[in-house]
């Protein structure tokens, strides 16, 4: 443990030199680079703050625009809803009118179809009735029915209206007037006599008579006097019934 003044002084100088050297080669460069980095970080932070401020401004602008758009959209939606409601009301009214028209048309159609169906049913019923009556009377036709039809003709002839009787007399007064007798079957002599007697009474004089058999008449007779025809046959009656029934429909 000894103090050497030379070493003491040299070490003081050495240390001061080392302080200068380290300041020159270590502290200053390192502090400079740290300062530059801090400056860069500060600059980056400032840039980031500026960017954040700009972003915030943009965000507020965006939110404002979004709010405006929302309000505009709400107004548009309300306007659209009003327009839709008005259009709906208009279309509903139009549809109601069309439905009423269609209902009326359908009712008319149904009525027409019902009438047609009724008419067809009537036709079918008449046809069935006519067919039934034709078959029934066809089976009932015979000499008895011929006689009865002859009786009916004689009775009708007696009760013939005056104007018809006059028309028959006019036809019978023609110079070539004759009687055309058509029967389903041959009449008996007695029946022919009764017929001729009744015609002579009605016409006031007798006429020559021609006879003809027509089985299609089924039963009864037909007497032609000029343009006139006195019919009391089953076929004529059925034909009269058919035409009468058709007219009634």
């Amino acid at each position: 443990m000894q103090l050497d003044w030379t070493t003491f002084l040299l070490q003081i100088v050495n240390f001061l030199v080392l302080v200068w050297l380290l300041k020159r080669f270590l502290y200053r460069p390192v502090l400079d680079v740290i300062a530059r980095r801090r400056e860069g970080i500060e600059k980056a932070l400032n840039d980031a703050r500026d960017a954040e401020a700009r972003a915030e401004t943009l965000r507020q602008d965006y939110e404002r625009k979004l709010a405006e758009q929302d309000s505009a959209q709400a107004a548009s939606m309300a306007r659209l809803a009003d327009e839709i409601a008005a259009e709906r009301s208009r279309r509903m009214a139009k549809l109601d009118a069309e439905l009423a028209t269609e209902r009326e048309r359908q009712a008319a159609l149904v009525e027409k179809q019902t009438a047609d169906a009724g008419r067809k049913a009537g036709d079918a019923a008449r046809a069935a009735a006519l067919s039934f009556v034709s078959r029934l009377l066809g089976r009932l036709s015979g000499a008895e029915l011929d006689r009865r039809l002859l009786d009916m003709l004689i009775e009708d002839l007696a009760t013939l209206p005056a104007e018809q009787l006059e028309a028959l007399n006019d036809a019978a007064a023609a110079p070539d007037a004759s009687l055309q007798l058509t029967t389903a079957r041959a009449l008996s002599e007695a029946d022919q006599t009764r017929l001729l007697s009744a015609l002579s009474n009605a016409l006031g004089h007798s006429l020559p008579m021609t006879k003809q058999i027509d089985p299609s008449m089924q039963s009864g007779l037909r007497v032609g006097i000029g343009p006139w025809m006195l019919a009391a046959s089953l076929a004529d009656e059925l034909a009269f019934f058919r035409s009468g029934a058709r007219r009634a429909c």
Partner: protein
Amino acid sequence: MDTESIIFTIGPLAITRPVVTTWAVMLGLTLLCAIATRRLKLDPGPFQTMLEGIVGTIHDAIDDTLPDYGVRLLPFIGTLWIFIAIANLVGVLPGASSPTGDLSTTAALAILVFLSVHWFGIRGEGVRAYLSHYVQPSPIMLPFHIISEISRTVALAVRLFGNVMSLETAAILVLLVAGFLVPVPVLALHIVEALVQAYIFGMLALVYISGGIQSQQSRSSRIKAGASS
């Protein structure tokens, strides 16, 4: 003077082993720093990160004790820490001895600390204002202040010298009496002790300097407070 430690002489100056070792340390540190800081980048590599970590830690330690004095005190305090740590660790190398195991070196460092306390104190408030704190709160305190300054400077020098010298002596003794790998724990203790002593010396220097600066600052604030009241 121990004639065995003289390496060579330059005229009347006898260059001792601690001085040569100090030069070697200075040369190594300067070259290392010059190379390391030649191409510093803003995006640092691992070595630059370590370098910035050392300098930044020293700067922050100074700033924590004396806010706003980090840059001003960094060269002196930082060099104290770095130089004493490396100088202490040199003793671990075979055939080398720590410069800090020599009283002249530690005394030189302690004197520099003593002078730097006054230097920074006077730079802060001026000579008159600085010296006036020696007679505060009463002129009777002047001898005690002076004794305190001298004793703490001596303590600085002797503490570092004693610790390093005793460690080296212990290591040599263990090497002499023990086997091949036995001194390894002693050398590990040497490394720890070297770093601790460097930290203590630098920290005490920082505390003394901050005491010199802050005594002026507290006195100034008291004067300002009295004037305003």
